[in-house]
């Protein structure tokens, strides 16, 4: 799904099964100065299809940032993360975990699999907004990422 409707340099893939949370992410990514294209998939399998250009995502753009939940249907976030980070081509894409969990064992596991950042969703929307806002600014405006390899 493409909210912005036009092709931009920054392609963000949001993997989130909770519609409300997805809506909150969309609302939080509000800085119009940063050009972006937000794609939303609802389960782990679809996320993998998206990055691997399979099925209906045959022509999906390559994401520049992936926001990944852990508790997902079909394939959970950790599996998706493992596939991405084990793929020579895909592993360069920054993956940020965005989840309600703050379990240390899950955080550790994610970092072992090569996650680039781990964010626990705050309950208060103000904090939620602030966190995603700084995330947006860091990964899309501050951080320098490699150009897609060919």
């Amino acid at each position, binding site marked *: 799904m493409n909210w912005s409707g036009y092709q931009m340099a920054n392609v963000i893939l949001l993997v989130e099964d*909770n519609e409300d949370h997805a*809506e909150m992410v969309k609302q939080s990514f509000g800085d119009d100065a940063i050009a972006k294209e937000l794609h939303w998939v609802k389960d782990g399998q679809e996320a993998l299809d998206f990055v691997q250009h399979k099925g209906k995502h045959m022509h999906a753009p390559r994401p520049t940032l992936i926001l990944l939940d852990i508790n997902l249907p079909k394939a959970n976030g950790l599996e998706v993360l493992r596939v991405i980070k084990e793929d020579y081509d895909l592993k360069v894409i920054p993956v940020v975990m965005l989840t309600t969990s703050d379990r240390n064992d899950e955080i550790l596991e994610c970092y072992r699999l090569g996650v680039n950042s781990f964010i626990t969703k705050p309950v*208060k*929307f103000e904090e*939620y907004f602030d966190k995603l806002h700084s995330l947006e600014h860091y990964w899309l405006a501050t951080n320098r990422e490699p150009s897609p390899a060919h």
Partner: protein
Amino acid sequence: MQSVHDLNQPRRKARIGLRGYLFCCLGLVAALPVLVLGVIQVTKWEAKQMDDVDQERQFVAQTLIQGIGQMVDGHVRAVETLAGQVQARGSLDQDVLQPMVSSLRARYGGFSVMYIAGADGVSIVTDPPFNEDGKPNAGTDYSKRDYYRAMVRTGRTAISRVQIGKRSGVPNVQIAAPVRDPKGDMVGFVEGSLDLDGIQELVDSTIKGMPGLQVAVLDHEGRVIVYPDEKVRKAVKNLSHLALFKKLGGNGIEIRTGVDDKGVAMRASITTLTAYDLDWSVVVYRPQVYEQSQAAAARTQVLTVAGLALLVGLIIATALAEGLARPIRKLANVVTAVSKGDLSQMPEPPHALTPREMAALQVDVRHMVGQLKDYTTHMEKKIEERTEQVREANRELESFLYSITHDLKAPVISLYGMAAMLQKKCGEQLGEQGAHYLRRLMSNAGFMEQLITDLLNFSKAGKHEYRREQLDVDRVVKKSLDQCDSRIREGHVTVKVRSPLPSVVFDHNALCKIFLNIISNGMKFMGDQAHPCIEIGGRELDGFVEYYVKDNGIGIDQKYHDKVFKMFQRLKEVSVEGTGIGLAIVKKIVDMAGGRIWFESEVGKGTTFFFRIPKEVSARDLGDGYELERVSNG
């Protein structure tokens, strides 16, 4: 019945041990007969000893009587033999008689002179034939001699009185035996002079090796034949005036005391030689002093032997007492150890010499200890199993609590987020009433978030990965105080820290959380105290450290005391913020570290929370955290 308290009292040390008792008993048993026998022996000894020496002397005297008798007898027979030979020849011819007398004297030693004489008493032949001056001995008239007269008178062999040999100076006796013709008339006689120094030799050889023993042989007149003093002997002195040497009235043996010729007190045995009417006295005697000293020496010997026997008896008693007491003592040591919970001790198995009852006891105690050990092992295993089950159930519960709070979090996030977005996007269209509802909605969502966070913290108190490190507790307390610095300032609370606080090996965050929760709790219940104050201190105990946090707030009513550490328990009397989980988290951390938390409180005066934790928490006590880490590692 003895109470447990009495049983636990330390045993008094000042008791006599079994070995002591056994030693006393056995020692007494060993010593008593020795002592009794010793005393009896010592009192009887002198008499017994005197009796012994008397008997010894009597024996010697009788032996001598026999020996002297045989000696005299032998020589009498020699003289009679010669007389018989002469009689058989029937001739008193000098040439016939000379070889006979010479050969007989040569055959029998002891005769100084031997001669054959006619009935008139004049010698016909002698041996030796000549005296030292070269004059012939024959032709001497002996008719005046006492033995000649006695022989003529009785018609039988006669023995003279003792006299001193003129030339030899040796006491001697003459033995004369008649020679008869076929009709029975005396035609002559044979005489032999017997030297009595042979008797002295006999006496000397008899008493040889009998120290102190002396012998005197006296003739019927009391003149000495044998005497220790040679001078007296040579002089053939008459000692009949001395009571010691007085002739015996009749036959038999008499024991008497008296002085010898030198005035030394003697004890003597006297007997008489009656053969051939000799009537000689044999006196065997010893100095009384000597015999008494012998007796005294013997008494000393008896006492020494008795003493040695006593000593040996006591040594044996000691060894026996030790031998008997040792297995009992060892058994007692084992039982003591077992009573203190040390089951590693086991009584020795009985050996071949162990008494039956002792062996049975040893076997029974071994059996008992074995059973106790088995039972303890069984129980420990069972407890371990149960503990593991409880741990597992706890883990499941923790896990359940954790996931449930997690699952609750997602809808709360949505609720709060949606409400916030509604306020942001459509706030103006809601109106005052709508805005109020929305605020209540968000406030409740906020409270719910707080509840969930606290629940998660409580749950994590069991899952947190503890790091054990040596902590500077003053710094930990300062960090905790920093975290509630704003509230301290707002409430104008005076904080006193009794530095230095004892250090401890613990997890930094966990200890910080304990202090923070107790301090926060204290500040929450300060009430309207004019001078709110919180004091923090601590001390070291045996293997533990104990800290306290004291406030002068409203205190806790007795009826709420059992609810203080329970989850979600908030004291209804006061309206304060919070979810009521803080102290439950503290208790959980302290409990898991093997410690204890409690408080003392009085309404209106304040509350003091104490908690005590081991000075070094072992990894096992913080086990759950480590296990979680191990699982996630795999």
